[in-house]
């Protein structure tokens, strides 16, 4: 059996470093045909396409959205399909075109304004807040603003201080705005559709590094009437020892430190005995890959550090920064009694600070330990790679020198979660 599998791997001409990786590839071909995968980019593109064809009032406006096919190719193909009246390339004038978009929304159209990154939205922030968010209130309901502001938010790779800020906390504090932050393709599709259909101004914070990531997606998600509810967080994985809240890219990191497999499949060390258990390993890895490709996203086979210590973490994907799903977070904390908030942005007055405050107000007696916040460093983003790695929470690398293991006591009941560098 082993020889046959090895042959198949080499026959396909797929370069594989180790047998295990080859198994994973084979497993993916064998087992993932039932689950489709799309990238976040494709999810956003399809969501935009479907909403534009469903409602003629929806139009896309931004820099390079038309002929360039989108700065990050999110709006690829839309200009050819809908024409320049509905996919509008603008000059580099954020304040101007954001104001024009809000004015069009006043009249009754449904604009989708793309910012090349949300760093540039600061040039237009007066229109987002004073002209869009507050109008329905100031006019006592006469002027509603059904607009979506979308674009990449947060740090990309090596883009420096002026292109790396996370705006979730800034926009999340404004009454009248809704702020959404998708993680997976399903989130991206469902939340963007919900945002475009929503009659209020929505700030839609994507992430550039997630655009190319593939996620498995169900047939229901691909249906054109699919949408996700705004204001509801998703419990990505259930757990009982600690709650980890995250949004956008950090959900992936949280899932990774939690566990790759379900809790029950932590390998006892003896199984790595190379002589006896190679076959068993193949079977287990296939099984693992099956589960991996069908249920989770994780490029690393290493078990999550929390699982290694026997800690079962509940990972909450916030999805909606405003309205914040306080009830889900509090219910989870009341179950697990511990909370770690993860975000990429600056810590002071951040999303994690608000979650801390909410949990202190509503679930104080349930907390067994102080809330732990993991956020970006209190510095403008540096360029040098090593400093950049220190400025945002990091994903585990394969090389052990990049991994910072937490000093966890063996007995998880006395868990004191100190600074986890993910």
């Amino acid at each position: 059996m082993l020889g046959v599998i090895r042959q198949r791997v080499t026959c396909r001409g797929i370069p594989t470093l180790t047998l295990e990786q080859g198994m994973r590839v084979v497993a993916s071909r064998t087992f993932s045909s039932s689950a489709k995968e799309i990238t976040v980019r494709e999810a956003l593109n399809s969501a935009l396409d479907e909403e534009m064809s469903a409602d003629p009032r929806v139009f896309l406006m931004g820099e390079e959205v038309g002929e360039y096919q989108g700065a990050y190719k999110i709006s690829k193909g839309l200009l050819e399909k809908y024409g320049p009246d509905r996919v509008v390339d603008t000059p580099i004038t954020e304040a101007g075109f954001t104001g024009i978009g809000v004015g069009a929304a006043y009249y009754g159209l449904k604009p989708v304004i793309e910012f090349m990154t949300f760093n540039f939205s600061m040039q237009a922030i007066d229109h987002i807040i004073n002209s869009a968010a507050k109008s329905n209130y100031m006019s006592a309901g006469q002027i509603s603003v059904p607009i979506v502001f979308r674009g990449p938010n947060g740090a990309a790779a090596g883009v420096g201080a002026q292109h790396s800020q996370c705006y979730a906390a800034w926009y999340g504090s404004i009454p009248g705005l809704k702020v959404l932050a998708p993680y997976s393709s399903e989130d991206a599709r469902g939340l963007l559709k919900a945002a475009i259909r929503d009659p209020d101004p929505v700030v839609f914070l994507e992430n550039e590094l997630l655009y190319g990531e593939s996620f498995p997606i169900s047939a229901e998600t691909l249906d054109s009437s699919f949408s996700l509810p705004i204001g509801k967080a998703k419990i990505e994985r259930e757990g009982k020892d600690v709650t980890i809240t995250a949004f956008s890219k950090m959900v992936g990191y949280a899932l990774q430190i939690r566990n790759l497999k379900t809790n029950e499949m932590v390998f006892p060390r003896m199984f790595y005995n190379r002589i006896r258990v190679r076959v068993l390993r193949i079977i287990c890895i296939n099984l693992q890959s099956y589960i991996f490709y069908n249920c989770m996203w994780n490029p690393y086979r290493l078990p999550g550090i929390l699982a290694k210590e026997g800690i079962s973490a509940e990972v909450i994907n916030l999805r909606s920064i405003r309205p914040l799903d306080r009830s889900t977070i509090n219910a989870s904390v009341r179950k697990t009694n511990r909370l770690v908030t993860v975000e990429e942005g600056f810590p002071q007055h951040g999303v994690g600070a608000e979650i801390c405050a909410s949990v202190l107000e509503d679930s104080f007696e349930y907390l067994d330990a102080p809330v732990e916040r993991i956020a970006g460093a209190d510095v403008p983003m540096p360029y040098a790679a090593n400093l950049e790695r220190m400025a945002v929470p990091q994903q585990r690398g394969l090389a052990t020198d990049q991994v910072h293991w937490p000093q966890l006591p063996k007995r998880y009941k006395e868990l004191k979660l100190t600074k986890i560098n993910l």
Partner: protein
Amino acid sequence: MAQLTRRTTDLLKPFSAALSSTRLLTTTSTNPITVETSLPFTGHRIDPPSRTVETTPQELMSFFRDMALMRRMEIAADSLYKAKLIRGFCHLYDGQEAVAVGMEAAITKKDCIITAYRDHCIFIGRGGTLLQCFSELMGRKDGCSKGKGGSMHFYKKENGFYGGHGIVGAQVPLGCGLAFAQKYSKDENVTFAMYGDGAANQGQLFEALNMAALWDLPAILVCENNHYGMGTAEWRAAKSPSYYKRGDYVPGLKVDGMDAFAVKQACKFAKEHALKNGPIILEMDTYRYHGHSMSDPGSTYRTRDEISGVRQERDPVERIRKLVLSHDLATEKELKDIEKEVRKKVDEAIAQAKESPMPDPSELFTNVYVKGYGVEAFGADRKELKAVLP
């Protein structure tokens, strides 16, 4: 000799009575009258329209009545502010009434107007009632924004009035957005985005104007140049105070903003132009008698002689009064009666507005969202004051 004149005046009394009754009849007639504007128009990259304006007695009288109403309303708002019934900001429009009234005469309610914070008279021109205006100023439930907006946030969307904006210059890109939507929806209507000489230097105005010109949007930018941006005179703020020329590639027209007929002619001309050729700038040369707002006396940066000089020579209501008298449409007394009637209307509206209650405390949390999804909103005391947004 004196006896003779007295008898002739006695004899003439019935004639004058008959004449005055025929005059009253003519105030509703639609016989055309030709009026010349006070000054010729100056064009930038465009041939200006003619100085001759067609009007009717009905229109002339309605101009007088509307402007008198606006004037009286603004003066009443001044007293209310000093009586502390109006709080916060109150920016008064008296002196500039001709722009509001002339513009309304040239357009329909399907055309959109958007302006900055000096919006009380534009709101009235767009069909707002005095009660809605005074209630909103005093923060009462019957206000046009239910008391939640205030002086700077009057709206009347069904009549094409989109506010009422407090951030200087923001209304210009918003107005271009309204024009964009009108073009997108293929409505054959235009948008008038009004701003002042202070806002004319804003960058977002030029950003929006560039896009309006690129895409041929039916946007008309109206600069109400009252020569002072708050306390800064135009020569201290703008290197080039020819605001009608500042569009560069966009045509412009300079208009005497104290002459309602010049404004009407210019707006009619601009609407035709915008529907065919894209944006145009109108500079209305106008003046405000009050300061920038009620907290500004208005005399620290300009002389009282200047203010009274404009009032004597260029007052828009006086100009219409003279036109009415010269065309024999009404006597002095009749015009004074109209003014008394207007004053009475304003006083009644204020009395009614004072009776109107303040908004219900539950209104604190309404209209935050159109669709609230049952999310919780908190007041200052998070335990005591909270609501669920429907």
